């Protein structure tokens, strides 16, 4: 019997998972100290307690089950469920990201349509693009005077560049054959933009949207570590302060899973606008 390649890769994936868990368990301890009998004084001093340690996979899995059973619990400002934290982060990412889409896509469209505009804006884009979004944070905090809105602004400023550049590039590289079809059909500029240029450029625009979503999710964690309050970034930092490394590892995993889901979402939507020549 022969196996399909898909089956082989699934089996290999599962095999690797077991390998990682096994190695993880081997190299991590449970934080307990020397097993010798402690004196009463040593017990009182807490030497019998477990030490902070890098958690093994099984310990993280146990915590994950516990956390995911009640993802939205709320025991006050410093103890909220992982679901709540992720929800706040996603909300901020979406706000900044959508604001960015609203501005970057039309602007990128205009830049792509006009070579003069494109050349004129190039130096600004090239200078602004490499700035770490977090570098804007102090300025944002001072001007906006609100930590949550500031983190939204940081998402906005980091996601705008890939969208802008990809949209402009997509519009500029629409094949002249397609434009000629529109011209010979006597389309005006507006009709040309919506029936020829936009559909032709959409796959490239979506590439930009996907890159931006990835960057936004990377940046929100760092931004929330700075501004605090709520969100997955704050959660990670808070658990670090609590020296709860199992929670730290668990939230790292959750950040990865949500990031993957966000990317898959954009990829799914973009399928409807993709075309093959």
């Amino acid at each position: 019997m022969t196996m399909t390649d898909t089956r082989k890769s699934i089996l290999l994936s599962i095999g690797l998972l077991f390998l990682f868990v096994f190695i993880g368990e081997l190299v991590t301890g449970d934080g307990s100290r020397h097993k010798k009998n402690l004196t009463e004084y040593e017990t009182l001093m807490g030497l019998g307690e477990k030490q902070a340690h890098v958690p093994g996979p099984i310990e993280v899995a146990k915590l994950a089950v516990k956390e995911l059973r009640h993802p939205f619990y709320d025991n006050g400002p410093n103890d909220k469920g992982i679901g709540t934290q992720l929800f706040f982060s996603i909300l901020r990412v979406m706000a900044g990201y959508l604001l960015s889409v609203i501005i970057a896509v039309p602007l990128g469209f205009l830049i792509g349509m006009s070579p003069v505009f494109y050349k004129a804006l190039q130096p600004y884009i090239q200078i602004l693009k490499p700035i770490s979004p977090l570098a804007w944070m102090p300025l944002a905090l001072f001007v906006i005077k609100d930590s949550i809105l500031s983190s939204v602004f940081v998402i906005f400023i980091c996601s705008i560049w890939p969208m802008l550049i990809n949209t402009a590039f997509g519009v500029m590289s629409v094949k002249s054959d397609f434009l000629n079809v529109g011209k010979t059909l006597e389309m005006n500029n507006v009709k040309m933009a919506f029936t020829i240029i936009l559909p032709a450029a959409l796959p490239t625009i979506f590439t930009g949207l996907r890159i931006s979503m990835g960057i936004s999710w990377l940046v929100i964690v760092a931004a929330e570590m700075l501004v605090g309050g709520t969100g997955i970034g704050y959660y990670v930092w808070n658990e670090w302060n609590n020296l709860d490394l199992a929670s730290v590892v668990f939230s790292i995993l959750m950040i990865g899973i949500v990031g993957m889901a966000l990317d898959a979402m954009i990829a799914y939507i973009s399928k409807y606008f993709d075309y093959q020549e």
Partner: protein
Amino acid sequence: MDTNFLNVKNISKSYPIKDSNSFVTIYENVSFSIDKGEFICLIGHSGCGKSTILNNLAGLNLVSGGSISMQGQNVNKPSLDRGVIFQNHSILPWLSVLKNVTMAIACKFKTMSKADIESRAIHFLKMVNLDDHIHKKPSELSGGMKQRVGIARAFAIEPSLLLMDEPFGALDALTRGKLQDKLVEICDKTKQTTFMITHDIDEAILLSDKILLMSDGPEARVAETVIVDIPKPRNRASIVNHPAYYVIRNYLVDFLVNQSSLISQKLKTGSLSDKDLPLTVDPLQLKYNLENNIINP
């Protein structure tokens, strides 16, 4: 007053050479005319500006000198009166076959109802035998089928003048033959006025009333007008038996192999003057038209 349907007078095209003040002239002193219902082919070597002339006629690209007028109107921008079939079919890949055609019809007949547009599109897709594939995306079609969509799209808007830029150039010989037959059939039926660029001599003889021959570029000219005096309707299988066929064919081959470069040399040295061009040639009688006042070859 010109009575011809389309008049091309002394057009030229030149481009500035990069990093210098001089210009390169692709072609100049090109004049010809097309009557209503005529099928004209333009043949010449690569680089003589054939496609540029077609784009000039379409209004996609403007001439540097001279003038083009169609039905008394100056041609300076694209128009729905001039349909174009592009070499690489230029079907919009994100639209279905049907939508590609309906979009064009909707541009031309602005008041037509949706149902009428669709039935018109289906009618023209049927004409090119694509009615079974109307909901497919272009990526699911073969090269020949895509080109047929292009043909349906162009005919569906009933242009006064149809322009074709090597429409079958990218296809294999068998498919090309089938599409040529289809085109002969459609053109016989519709009496479509057509200007076509081709590399394929047999295709030109099969389809044309007149064949324009271009000398080599740069500074190319339309050097000769060859009359194809073979009665219509023609078809690919029987046309080769017509006594004129090989005479014309040999004449065209000789032109492309020897004369096209010779003429461009003669023009350069001045031994041939622009006022003698284009010569009108009827290869069947193998004699030059006397009104052009040229000696025998």
